[in-house]
């Protein structure tokens, strides 16, 4: 379907994946243990230590030798709807591979918070995770197993961009994707029709529309940032619109300083938007902001389909009335070429007990029928398999496929593209910005971001 030319976090650079880190994690305070092996030289590093010996259990296996065994699957799909879709996926996997799947669901945020100790402790064979640097970071620590052999089988189903998303810093694949979803601006069709609004395609039209909404008594943009991460989406899209995709990715990897003028421009545009964003954002969860949109108190909301559309379903609001448009262009050089479309997928943990069966499951997941099984009950995400047409796609999903397909490149969202500690720092900075979007504060925040980035990235 979509030729999603997504570049996750680009080519391996000078940060090499270090095999020795995957060596035994015993010897807490014992000596060097391979620290000498930390080659500082750049370039690809074929796995040393644990990585290369993937032939321990004889490579990719066919289903016959693993039938009847059980694979444990750690999942953070804790929302009822995601949980149901995931169950549909795993039962389809069981039917196809004859491998039983035992799902261990953990609350969404808790799973992410505990991922490091989880993977070092006694993880499940397979686990849910995200593409992007967030995946590469953990793969580089030696906490996940390569699945090149799985990709040998499923590679044809995906575009090169999707494969790139699933590739670690060392050039090997670590992830099988399942779905992605775009970050777009939502609105209610009936409201727009009633009030004769038209969809904006440029920044000026965007601001003008917001102004008109405000005078009509609506909140122009429903906005919430209590959890910290929603606001990062706004930063991302503004950055990609103003400075382009390459600049954005470079910024995420701290190859461009946060004190750069480009970043300043982004914040300035955001400040221009602030009067039209819902007040009190730092105390509001995004679910409540979505409710404001549902109840037509707000006119628009910029968030992922995965969230807003899901909320409409949970609250039994009028999903048919919901529509979206891509964020308007700001810099004509870039137009509307890019967007955030984070991809979720599954990985194989290093300490998996039943590797063969787990790989069989992964081989199943990387196919059209598997994605269809998942997406049957999922009304907002879209699959990544080439040419996938899921009959149960609703209007939102069909439009998502088209819009993502139109993009020249797709980013994964700041907290998946940058070092997690940096994302944390940016969460706090964005919240400070929302409190005080004045120019002097912007300069201060940029300084703080740069200082922290230096500490985090070196």
């Amino acid at each position: 379907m979509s030729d999603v030319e997504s570049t996750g976090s680009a080519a391996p650079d000078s940060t090499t994946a270090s095999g020795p880190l995957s060596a035994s994690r015993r010897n807490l305070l014992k000596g060097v243990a391979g620290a000498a092996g930390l080659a500082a030289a750049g370039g690809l590093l074929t796995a040393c230590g644990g990585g290369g010996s993937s032939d321990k259990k004889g490579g990719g296996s066919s289903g016959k030798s693993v039938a009847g065994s059980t694979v444990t699957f750690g999942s953070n799909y804790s929302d009822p709807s995601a949980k149901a879709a995931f169950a549909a996926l795993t039962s389809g996997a069981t039917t196809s591979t004859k491998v039983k799947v035992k799902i261990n669901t953990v609350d969404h945020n808790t799973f992410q918070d505990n991922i490091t100790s989880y993977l070092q402790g006694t993880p499940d064979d397979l686990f849910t995770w995200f593409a992007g640097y967030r995946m590469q970071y953990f793969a580089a620590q030696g906490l996940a197993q390569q699945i090149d052999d799985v990709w040998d089988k499923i590679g044809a189903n995906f575009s090169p961009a999707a494969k790139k998303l699933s590739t670690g810093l060392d050039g090997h694949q670590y992830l099988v994707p399942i779905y992605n979803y775009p970050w777009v601006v939502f609105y209610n069709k009936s409201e727009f029709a009633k009030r004769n609004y038209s969809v904006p395609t440029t920044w000026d039209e965007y601001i003008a529309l917001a102004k008109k909404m405000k005078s009509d008594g609506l909140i122009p943009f429903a906005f919430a940032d209590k959890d910290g991460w929603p606001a990062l989406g706004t930063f991302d899209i503004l950055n990609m619109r103003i400075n382009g995709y390459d600049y954005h990715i470079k910024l995420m990897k701290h190859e461009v300083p946060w004190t750069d003028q480009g970043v300043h421009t982004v914040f300035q545009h955001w400040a221009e938007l602030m009067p039209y964003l819902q007040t009190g954002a730092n105390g509001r969860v995004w679910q409540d902001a979505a409710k404001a949109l549902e109840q037509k108190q707000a006119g628009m909301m910029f968030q992922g389909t995965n969230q807003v559309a899901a909320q409409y379903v949970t609250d039994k609001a009028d999903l048919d009335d919901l529509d979206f448009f891509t964020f308007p262009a700001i810099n004509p050089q870039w137009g509307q070429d890019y967007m955030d479309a984070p991809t979720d997928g599954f990985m194989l943990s290093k300490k998996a007990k039943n590797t063969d069966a787990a790989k069989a499951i992964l081989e199943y997941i990387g196919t059209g029928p598997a994605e269809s099984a998942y997406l049957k009950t999922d009304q907002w995400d879209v699959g990544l398999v080439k040419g996938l047409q899921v009959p149960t796609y609703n209007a939102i999903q069909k439009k998502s496929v088209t819009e993502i397909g139109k993009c020249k490149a797709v980013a994964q969202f700041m907290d998946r593209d940058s070092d997690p500690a940096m994302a944390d720092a940016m969460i706090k900075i964005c919240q400070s910005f929302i409190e005080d979007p004045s120019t002097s504060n912007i300069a201060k925040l940029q300084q703080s971001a740069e200082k922290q980035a230096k500490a985090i990235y070196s």
Partner: protein
Amino acid sequence: MSTEALARPAAPSAARSGGPGSKPKAWGQVASQAFLIIASVLWVLPILFALYVAVRPYSDTRKYGYVSMPHHITFDNFRDAWTQSDMLHFFWNSVLITVPAVVIVLVLASGVAFVLTRVNVRVNVALLIVFTAGNLLPQQVIITPLYRIYLKIHLPGFLSHSGLMYNSIFGLVVINVAFQMGFCVFVLSNYMRSIPGEMYEAALVDGASLWTRFWRLTVPLCRPALAALATLLTTWIYNDFFWAITLMSSGDKRPVTSALANLQGQFVSNQNMIAAAAMIAAIPTLVVYLCLQRQFIAGLSLGSSKG
């Protein structure tokens, strides 16, 4: 003395005097009464409000807000919270953690207290300080290495599903025991000091061994203190939040109090269910409170009286 604190009835204290000057006294009394009434009402208001939210359906509060006359009163939220969030399971986890922890702490602490008060080990005071200070540290001071230690210690399967001390009920029991030990040692050693020496001499004359003197003589005498401490510890360990969220990653192994944090995320769309879940989670402590308030307060007083 400490036993007096337990046995003291709720009689009017000697502060109420029948002295002269009734007018200023009456003023003072009226003012005090008024203040206490207002304070009590204010104090209980948030809990009542949460209860009120819990008994109203989501559709009601969504339309009219929390502060509105009720159009329907329902216990559906309680039923839904109970079934959808598997609260029985979490309660069971709490029981599995709290009960063994309380029993073990009391047994171990009484042993230590006995030795430190009745046996002349040269470093008695130093050890008492070690124990007491251990309990006074904020939990966050020790969490970082503790977390690493827990990841390293392997346990046999029957003790821990995960094979490690991390993410196991056993692990939570151990840390609660270690952490609460100091307070119990402190309180029990104070209490044991008050046991008259003749009893021990009589026992010695009868040829009782140290163990007998401890188990048959001292422990039964400490029953009031042990009961009070048991009440306190049950409440504290049940209410513990920090150890559970840092040392337990599996959602379904968590005890009730920390599971509530997960429920906040799960029911974020339906605050009424969260209110109901919170009320359900509060029930055990309220039961302890209603039935054993005296013991609880006595336990706190024990910690506060030395003699």
